[in-house]
């Protein structure tokens, strides 16, 4: 029972001095506030939504326990699956384009071959500081034929471009807004990761006669794999959560965007227009689980590749 020794032995035991044990709990003093608020705004709602999903509110009989009925309903819900398909398509197209552009710009900045590098970096990052509301309104106006750029181009050149807010194109238009907002942010993550690759590696490659392209594929990309995986995961989570842009554009394109356009929009409508809180919580949980599974698979695959 050496741990019960009185603090007199303080300086004697360099491996684990008793004052360290006494201090063991002081870490909680610093992290405690964070954990307390975290429990209130993260863990409690999470537990509450699981609880809600097990009940159903009926006109007759009030709230009753229904077990997994809500989940069965969600899995057979065509509106939910249509919304999920839409964000999956969005993810499959928009995320690679956005991350591809971000990576190209980061590599260009890192190559040291640009004039005015700092201006480039800050300019491309700036849209990140623009709220989704403002970005969506701005692009929405520009898309519009009334006083937007598309209308101007049509009038000026005598052409008729397809309407970006039509049902066929609105998803691509939303993808463009999201790309515009987040290219700079992802670019910065890649660029920061590239900055810390040791220069000696490049020099060694140059001595071996490797060209720029070879340096990029053999050294730079493997070196920032961690950053690539993290950016991909955050983008996947972001795509599955898509809400702000369609919700704001909805007023400008009411025919193209329905209130069940994305899974999140659907849960929002269920809850706040339909008052179906229990079912809404269920859909949110199903969506959360799907998101986590996809993010986890990407993480496993991303880390395994070439590791």
């Amino acid at each position, binding site marked *: 029972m050496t741990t019960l020794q009185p603090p007199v032995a303080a300086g004697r035991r360099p491996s684990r001095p008793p004052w360290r044990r006494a201090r063991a709990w002081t870490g909680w003093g610093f992290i405690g506030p964070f954990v307390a608020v975290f429990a209130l705004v993260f863990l409690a709602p999470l537990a509450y939504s699981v609880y809600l999903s097990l009940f159903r509110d009926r006109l007759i009989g009030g709230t009753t326990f229904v077990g997994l009925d809500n989940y069965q309903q969600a899995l057979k819900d065509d509106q939910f699956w249509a919304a999920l398909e839409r964000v999956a398509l969005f993810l499959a197209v928009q995320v690679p384009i956005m991350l591809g552009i971000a990576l190209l710009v980061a590599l260009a900045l890192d190559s040291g071959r640009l004039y005015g590098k700092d201006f480039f970096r800050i300019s491309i990052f700036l849209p990140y*500081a623009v709220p989704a509301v403002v970005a969506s309104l701005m692009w929405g106006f520009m898309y519009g034929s009334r006083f937007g750029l598309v209308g101007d181009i049509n009038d000026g050149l005598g052409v008729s471009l397809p309407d970006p807010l039509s049902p066929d194109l609105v998803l691509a238009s939303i993808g463009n807004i999201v790309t515009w907002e987040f290219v700079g942010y992802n670019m910065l993550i890649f660029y920061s990761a590239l900055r810390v690759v040791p220069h000696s590696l490049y020099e060694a490659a140059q001595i071996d006669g490797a060209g720029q392209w070879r340096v990029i594929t053999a050294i730079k990309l493997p070196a920032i794999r961690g950053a690539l995986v993290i950016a991909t995961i955050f983008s996947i989570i972001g795509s599955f959560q898509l809400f702000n842009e369609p919700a704001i554009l909805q007023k400008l394109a009411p025919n193209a965007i329905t209130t069940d356009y994305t899974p999140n929009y659907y849960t929002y409508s269920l*809850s706040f227009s339909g008052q179906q809180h229990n079912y809404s919580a269920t859909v949110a949980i199903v969506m959360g689980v799907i998101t986590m599974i996809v993010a986890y698979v990407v993480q496993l695959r991303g880390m395994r590749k070439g590791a």
Partner: protein
Amino acid sequence: MTGPTATTTAPRPATKPHTAAPRLRAPRRQAPSRPRRSVLLTVLTGVFVLYSLVPLLWLLISATKTQEGLAGSFGLWFDGDFALWDNISETFTYQDGVFVRWLLNTLLYVVVGAGGATFLAVLGGYALAKFDFPGRRGVFAVVIGAVAVPTTALAVPTFLMFSKLGLTDTPWAIIVPSLISPFGLYLMWVFATEAVPTELMEAARIDGAGELRTFFQVALPLLAPGTVTVLLFTTVATWNNYFLPLIMLKDPDWYPLTLGLDAWNKQASTAGGEAVFNLVITGSLVTIVPLIAAFLLLQKYWRSGLAAGSVKE
């Protein structure tokens, strides 16, 4: 392969050749690591700069137009009459100056919400980096796991909880959820590990400083660059927040700017509502100017802070 002894005895031998290296390498380093600048690459990257800046330019130009001018003139050039100042004053006075109220609300949410989030993240990151307390690993795993939970999945239950507590339609409904930034905690954890030498903390303790004093007088100054980074990102998150206020607030008196602009925009499509697109556009410009200014002025900090975050992963 060559020296398992070198890897087991860790940092010290590793730093030795490192300090010697620059001297050896300095003369021939200049030539290969200074590639020639390329006009072609600059122009190609310039395309993306245009993509990023043209919409902001459109916003700036459109803010100088009257509502009729918006519809009647080319989007990327000025209209005959320059109405920017009229638009700004009308934005601030329309509907009895409700825009000012929204601006003050936003500031309140940012100062208390983002400021509080940063403070909690700094405290927590410092604890994770510098203290070996019971449950440390568990706390970290739960918080990192929470990053993957879609925050909007929590929105409905949070709303129901808050409405039972009578907190909806009050500033608390916005501030309390804004206080948690898992990303900020992670960034501060990484940053504090590097920035605060444990020896310095020990020295302060031996000099008789209490834990709080050690934190505030020794650690906090060293954590400043990381703190500014986290503050900037939590500020952006709070300033730009739309979903949370949308579900929590019914009373326009508590709206932040984002929700207010959205309401003005929707006004045009409601029956009998007055279209005020010039005010929506000017208000949007007023909304983004402070954030863009903050990012431009504080570049040095957030760049070094983000770099620290990417080293670790």
